[in-house]
């Protein structure tokens, strides 16, 4: 029921977002979230955007884990 895939908003008309993921375009009602803008990523459930994705946080989280993964890899190599 719940597409957990973040979709990027391409345009907004009458509080409906036209958003895409990959090459596929979806429409999502924006009535239950605040301040969605073109370029934002939204999480869509049953035709409604339920929340925006915070890109800065997403990238920060990834960076931390990438660093840890690299560190671990180097540590393993040294030990190996």
């Amino acid at each position: 029921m719940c597409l957990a895939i973040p979709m990027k908003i391409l345009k907004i008309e009458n509080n409906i977002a036209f958003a895409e993921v990959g090459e596929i375009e979806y429409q999502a009602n924006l009535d239950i979230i605040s301040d969605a803008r073109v370029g934002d990523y939204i999480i869509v459930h049953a035709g409604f955007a339920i929340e925006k994705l915070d890109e800065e946080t997403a990238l920060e989280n990834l960076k931390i884990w990438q660093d840890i993964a690299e560190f671990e890899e180097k540590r393993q190599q040294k030990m190996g």
Partner: protein
Amino acid sequence: MVKYIDEFRNPNIAKSLSQKIHEIMPDSKINLMEICGGHTITIFKYGIKKLLPQNLNLISGPGCPVCVTDNSFIDSAIELSHLQNVIICSFGDMLRVPGSHSSLINEKSKQSDIRICYSPMDAIEIAKNNKNMEIIFLGIGFETTVPLIASSIISAKSEGLKNFSVLSGHKTMPNAMKALLDSEDIRLDGFICPGHVSAITGLDLYKIIAEKYKIPCVVSGFEPIDMLESIYMLVKQIKENISTVQNQYTRVVRNQGNQKAIEIMNRVFEPVDAEWRGLGIIPGSGLKIKSEFQQFDANQKFDIPLIEKKENPGCICGNIMRGINTPLDCKLFKKICTPQSPQGACMVSDEGTCATYFKYSL
């Protein structure tokens, strides 16, 4: 490459998270419950269990909306579909769930007008285009879905639609978690909490679980790295003997939730006791439409005859929902019960535990 998806499937990060979990894992057995059916899919699809210590057990919980919907709701929907000039609108996976005597798909093949909607707004469109018909939307789902059903009821009211109503089978999460813990059927050491329910509600609803029941809670995203990180956070809490509510899915879930959605939900719905498949009646765990919007409440609008409820005696879906059995314990699993010919709700929905076991553990 799909942005904010593929990065969270990075195998190197998954490997190092798996190592970290192994490093801090205590010797004792740990039982974690993933409540959401979406999480169960991630666990199976990406083989997460293979990356975990042997003594870490993942148990699927009651988080698939279709699965927890009691037979009496399906029976009521079928009764409504027999009324004259009625169109039943439903999310697709409800149609094949067996009720006491039939399923919606069976009724559709007879004479009932039953239509699949991707969104409740589709049902609103159908209502606008069929003014001489009564459109009844089958409202199931947790806090993720409730605000959008509420929003469509508000739209219907502001547009003066008189032929639209909702049969509410909505449920809320925290009381079911408490009921599971109170039943003491299984010993749980931590909850992997549903990401999109929490996107709406925020973190506060799990406080009672962490503080009163002393069970650690981590709100998780749906990619493999999210799941592994959440499991790591839970094991760390257990090892350190603390129980708090943590948010792993920070890119989507704000601590205070989606205030606008909460406000819309509370405007239209209020708590009511509700019957769950497997868990029975849980006080205050359902949602009914407030009297201000009662013209949109199918329960108020129509006389729905009470049908004596029957369960398939071979189906142990209820026990699976409570975490005390897995589909492998069911004699019908894969033999008589398959996604093509489901005998119980857990085999119907994509998010159902039996459907997930069927799809990924062949």
